[in-house]
């Protein structure tokens, strides 16, 4: 099964980089594996769709701003997805809509499984390096969950 773990976010916008940080931990742990790729991207919508095409299973990690407690982790399916900070781009389509489009156009190209791990973050408007301690801890937890899931499969 061709699997993609993809962290989404902006690494120079503080906690916005949570998804990328978690993906980097996974990348270091899994090393080189022909059936498993780990990517870090700062984009959404159609571009994100292009990244996931051709894989059987996709695990996506991103920060969300939804009013929950900072650091809260959720695992959701694509069907449950409402627009989140970086899975939605006003430039083209939201990720969920992009995936619907992908299924409409080229079902065989689309992953059969898409899992989404989200970490609640506080939106910042100041460019900063690094994550807050709470979100960093959550990112480590998410990466552990994903590595366990990858080992089971």
């Amino acid at each position: 099964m061709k699997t993609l773990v993809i962290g989404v976010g902006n690494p120079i916008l503080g906690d916005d980089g949570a998804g990328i940080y978690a993906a980097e931990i996974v990348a270091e742990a899994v090393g080189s594996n022909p059936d498993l790729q780990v990517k870090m991207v700062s984009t959404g919508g159609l571009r994100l769709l292009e990244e996931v095409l051709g894989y059987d299973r996709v695990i996506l990690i991103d920060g969300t701003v939804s009013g929950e407690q900072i650091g809260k982790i959720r695992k959701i399916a694509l069907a449950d997805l409402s627009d989140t900070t970086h899975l939605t781009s006003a430039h083209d389509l939201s990720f969920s809509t992009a995936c619907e489009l992908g299924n409409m156009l080229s079902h065989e190209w689309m992953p059969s499984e898409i899992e989404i791990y989200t970490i609640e973050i506080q939106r910042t408007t100041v460019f900063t390096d690094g994550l807050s301690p709470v979100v960093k801890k959550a990112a480590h937890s998410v990466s552990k969950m994903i590595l366990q899931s990858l080992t089971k499969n």
Partner: protein
Amino acid sequence: MAEQGLIKIEPVTRLEGHAKISIFLDKKGDVDDAYFQVVELRGFEKFCEGRPVEEMPIITTRICGVCPWNHHLASAKAVEAVYNVDPPEPAKKIRELGYQAFFVHDHSTHFYALAAPDFILGPDAAPAQRNLAGILNKVGKEIGTTVLKALRYAHEIEEIVGGRAIHPVFAIPGGVGRPLTEKEVQGIQERGEFLLDYGKFTLKTFEETVLGNKKYLDMITGDTYRHKTFYMGMVDKEKKVSLYDGDLHVVSPNGKQFAQFHPKEYLEHISEHVEPWSYVKFPYLKKVGWKGFVDGEDSGIYRVGPLARFNVSDGLTTTLAQEAYRRMYETLQKPAHETLAYHWARVIEMLYSCERLLELTHDPEIMDKNVRTIPTSTPNEGIGAVEAPRGTLIHHYKTDADGILTGVNLIVATTHNSPAICMSVKKAAQKMIKKGKVDDGILNLVEMAFRAYDPCFACATHTLPGHMPLEISVFDSHRRLHKRISRG
């Protein structure tokens, strides 16, 4: 019907970034004024101070997830200027090859996801249908498969050349990280052949669907979306459109050559005006001066982007695109002042990029091993510029003798266009909104005014896409909020 004159649209769809339009009505319910406001994320240029300048081609791609390639290349060129080093020609060609693939991708996304719904479905189509899915339902899923395949192929070419598709890593001070192999170039050629057919198909679709429809052609050539401004763009030595390297040319509203300069001289020609109600600055031509949000020969406001590039140049270097350029100026006078003609120029430019990318794969130097000149000078100050899909992009860096940044200034395409965007929004609002009557279709016609510029407020405000998109509010003559229309 607006009771008191506030109309708010939130969010504005199909636009990159976070901004707000406020429309103020007079007592009759007609538009008195309109403001285009952008909320900025703080500190990018300050954030980079103290960092090694060679990090910038990687850091600046994070300004924007939509157009990272132009930042990567403008930044690499600025770093090279800091170190006074010139890459070898094969490296420049490799950079341009990846860049042309990016242009194909970016222009495609804008046309099909943002612009085409207005023209193929109509600006007053229901919002739920006025999108890419609506296009597919109307014209057939085959077109969608073609577009998706083209985006994927462009994406793959970017990955081959750039190391990564979305945030390239290949440009380093003095050149690129490695040469291209024969197998890689063959792979790009195969994809390039498909993209060339796709580029021709897209232009044909535009010509038949938009130019072949009198209503849309009247909209393009009509007064609502027309401003007589100056134009700026990059050209090569033969004065043909150049996206990667060249001098900047400026033409006046009457088409006369106004200025020609190397990008490193930009501060002698461009200044920035500040308004208290927006974080985006408003550049203008210094030698003309800031006269407010007005167009004409006496106003220093200028525009950049595909239409501006066409207006300042003598054409394009590739055959099919040049022919389309010629046909465009048979319909429109040169310089073309019609804002909606940006879409037309964009589609032609995409065809140019398809042709040019294939051309580069056959260039004898494209697999040359000489792809880097090692910098040896003491770093100091440097300016690098490229044409981004949306217009001229300038990166300006100052460093100490160890190459640590002491100052950063970025002028992005959408910033150059911000005064014109304000004018376009206001004019469209004044023409469309009468006696307080506003519906979704009318508001979309106002949105079309700025959508033509393909603005990227992620870049203009140094942020990343995904935040709350644009909202439009309309206020009455007493500045009370009247109506809110939400989308998305």
